[in-house]
Each structure stands twice: as structure tokens, then as C-alpha cells.
């Protein structure tokens, strides 16, 4: 799946097979099905915390991020968000439906 195929109206939630902990202010997620660890950078950790709190649509998440990073280019935020979500999906730690 590439970034372009993620629909903004899709709902994101963390997979039930995933555990995560904080490490140095960043998240480490573990896929319990294959025991694979996945280190998440600081921006990814912020996204992760938001979807950990409650499942939400990609559009809502994008809106929260543009609010948080109001100084940054919205298009760049969108690209980074989609890239992160794609990577998470490939690791099997989030469900985008």
C-alpha cells in the first residue's frame, strides 16, 4: 500500500495485537504476532499518542497536526502523516479502514 491509497475519511486505530511503551519520550511499539519491535520518532510518537487516546479519521488527525504544527507547511505535514501511517500499516501495528 502506498501513501496515496490512504483515504482521508478512513478511520485509524491501533491494532489489538500491538503494545507500546515510552522510551526517551518516544514510543516503541511491539507487534505481538511476530514479536517485532518498531521504534517511532518524536513526531510519530505524537501521532501515536493521539490515536492511542481514541480512534479517529485520517482527516481529523491531519487537522489536529496542522493545529499543533501551525508554523509548518500543511502539505509537508500531510505527506509525513501519510508516510508514517503507511509504515505503521506495513508493520501491522495500526488498522486503517
Amino acid at each position: 500500500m502506498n501513501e496515496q491509497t490512504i483515504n482521508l475519511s478512513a478511520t485509524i486505530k491501533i491494532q489489538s495485537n500491538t503494545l507500546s511503551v515510552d522510551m526517551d519520550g518516544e514510543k516503541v511499539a511491539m507487534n505481538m504476532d511476530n514479536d517485532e519491535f518498531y521504534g517511532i520518532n518524536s513526531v510519530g510518537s505524537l501521532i501515536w499518542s493521539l490515536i492511542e487516546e481514541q480512534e479517529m479519521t485520517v482527516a481529523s488527525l491531519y487537522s489536529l497536526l496542522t493545529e499543533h504544527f501551525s508554523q509548518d507547511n500543511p502539505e509537508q505535514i500531510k505527506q509525513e502523516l501519510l508516510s508514517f501511517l503507511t509504515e505503521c500499516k506495513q508493520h501491522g501495528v495500526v488498522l486503517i479502514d
Partner: protein
Amino acid sequence: MTDNTPLCQTLDSLEYKLLIALTHPFPDQQQDQVANAIANHSFDWNHFLSLVLWHRLTPQIYRNLIDHRDSIPEHTFHQLRTAALNCQRRSLHQSAWLVKLTKLFDCQQIRFIVLKGVALSQLLYTDSARREAKDLDILIDKADLTQVEHLLVETCGFIRQIPSVDATEEEISYLNRFKKDRVYVHPRDKTMIEFHWRFLNEKPLLAVPFSELIQQSLPLQFHNQTISVLGEAHFWLYQSIHGTYSGWYRLHWLTDIAEMLVQHPVEWDMLLELADKHYCKRCLIEAVALAGQVYQLPIPETIHVQMHNNWRQQISLSLAMRLLAKAQILTPLIFAYRVMLWAPKRYYIYYFLYRIVQTSYSSTVYEHQHPVRRILYCLIRPFALVIRRLL
């Protein structure tokens, strides 16, 4: 004793003071202590690190020191970080297994209570990875032991470590009578799980029926699962007895008690009555008094009165402080002395002898030797221990 055992320490050393400050339930003085340590050229960071590792406080200390990383010797910080990462990884594996076992046991209607480890970490620190734990301790009904072992070995791929897989029926039956748990290890991620059917090998202590424990257990949300932990009163008694029985050689047991004092205040008169019923009143008093003394926390009046009216309890507390300062695993002789702290009077001699002659749980002597050799071993063991100590 492992290599990282601090050779000597005193509770009023700079290093120990920093350890206490960084694990204190009220972290007000942390910044002052860190500033003192950084400014003081005689502060021994290697010794501090060895204390952290020995007392199994790595995750807490690492988190509280991370903002000062530039002021800490690079080598020390690197070692601390590596140890913290290992703890993190281990606790993720343990949490994952706890989640998997919860689902599996729920399907099979096997009831269980999680005693310490990641569940205690979640309960006390609201983070399953905050507290260092070597293994998962799970209490089950002894009647479910065979089914639990079958699921663990056949479905999950664990290997029974104690008793070993080639133990005979006779040996297993012997261990089932006298021991409290079985140990399993997963070959892939090395997760260790202990399944307990009672709290201690010594039977009269906190010998609460499983049905009563489960009835009073509390639900805890753990990574989107609901697990059971001990009810508040049993939780207090178990934590107290575990530390007292071991002789408080690791500070993290006391850190938990201090945290419980702040977060889980109880009706002390009722708890003391229950503790008395289960032969662990003196353990409870020692745990609370020791935590109060080390962490400078106010001790409940009831405990204070009990402490000051009992000279044996005071001597015991003073011994516990020394043991804590020494950070040494109890020798059989000191353990035997401390039996007087918790054993009912009529059991003193029995437990004294039992502890002196009993072989180690992991000893292969039980499992592979002829009965005559086992008896000889038991007779020789106390002398062998004395000789080892002298040498």
C-alpha cells in the same frame, strides 16, 4: 550474588541518597540531590550505577536522570541507557505474554491473579514498563496446574525449567507438596513465568484459599485486557511478606511499599488484624516502618505504636536496615534468625532447621540423585555452607 553487587555501601552515602531521591514517591528533592551529585567530585557514578542495577531500579532512575544526561559521565549514562532499553524490551515481552495468556485462560475459564511484575508496575506507576521485573508471577488454583502447564507448553511453547522437564513423577509430587511454584521459560524471547499456587513455601504464612483471594481480587485494565490483581488487604500483606521474607536486599521492594503508603492507604487496624490471623503482622509492621524510615515518610499512628511497644520488632527493624545497606542476599543463618520475625512460635525450630537443611529449589540434587545421596546432601549442606563462607 551477581557481579553487579555493590561491595559496600551505607544508607547515608551520596550515591544512596540520590537513589532514594530519584525513587521517592514525592520527588520534590530530586533536583537538589541531582545537583549535589553532579557538583560533588567525590560522587562515584560507577558505584551509583552498580546500586541501580543491584536494586533493580533502572527504568525509574533512567527516566528521572534523562534530563541531566549532559552532566553525567557519558560511559555511565550509556550503560544506564542500555540497561533501561533491556528492561523495556523485557517488559514488552512480559506484557505481550500476559495479554496472550489472559485471552487463552479466559477461553478455558482458568482464573488467575497477577502478583507482581508488569501488573504491579501498571498498578503503582500507571505504566507497565516503569518497574523492572525479571519474570511474571501468576497465582493460580493448584487444581488448574496440570491444565495451565499443558497450555503453556503445548500451545505457547514454554519449557518447564523448575522442576526440569525430565523430573520423575515422584520428584514432581515431592516438589508439589513442599514448594509454592513452577518456573517456565520461553526459548524464543527468554520470558520467564512463575506459576504459584501459594505465596510462600512455608505453609502457615498468608495461607489464604485461592477462592477467597479471587473473590477479593480487583480488576486492572492492562493493555486493553482486564486482569485480576490481589485485593488491597492481600496486596499489602503479600508485598510486606515478600520483602521481609527476602530480607529487603533489593530496594525496589521498599520503593513499592513507599508508593503504596502514599497511593493505597488502608484501614490499618483491620489490616493488622488480618495480618495477625495470617501470621504476618510483624512483617507488615517491619515493611511500613522500614519504608517510612528509608523514604522519610510519615508512618501511620497504629504502626508507630505497635513498633514502639515491641523491642523484638525494633531489633528486627534495625537488622533490616543493616541488611538493606549491605545489599546482600540472606545467608541461611541470617534467614533462620529472621524466621523469628514471621514464624508462629511453635514453628521456630521447625523452620530454622528446614531452612538450614533444605536444598535449593533449582538444585539437581532433588531430581537426579539417589534418595540416600539426597539425605546425605541435606546433612552435609549446612557444614558445606559454613566452609564456603569461611573460604
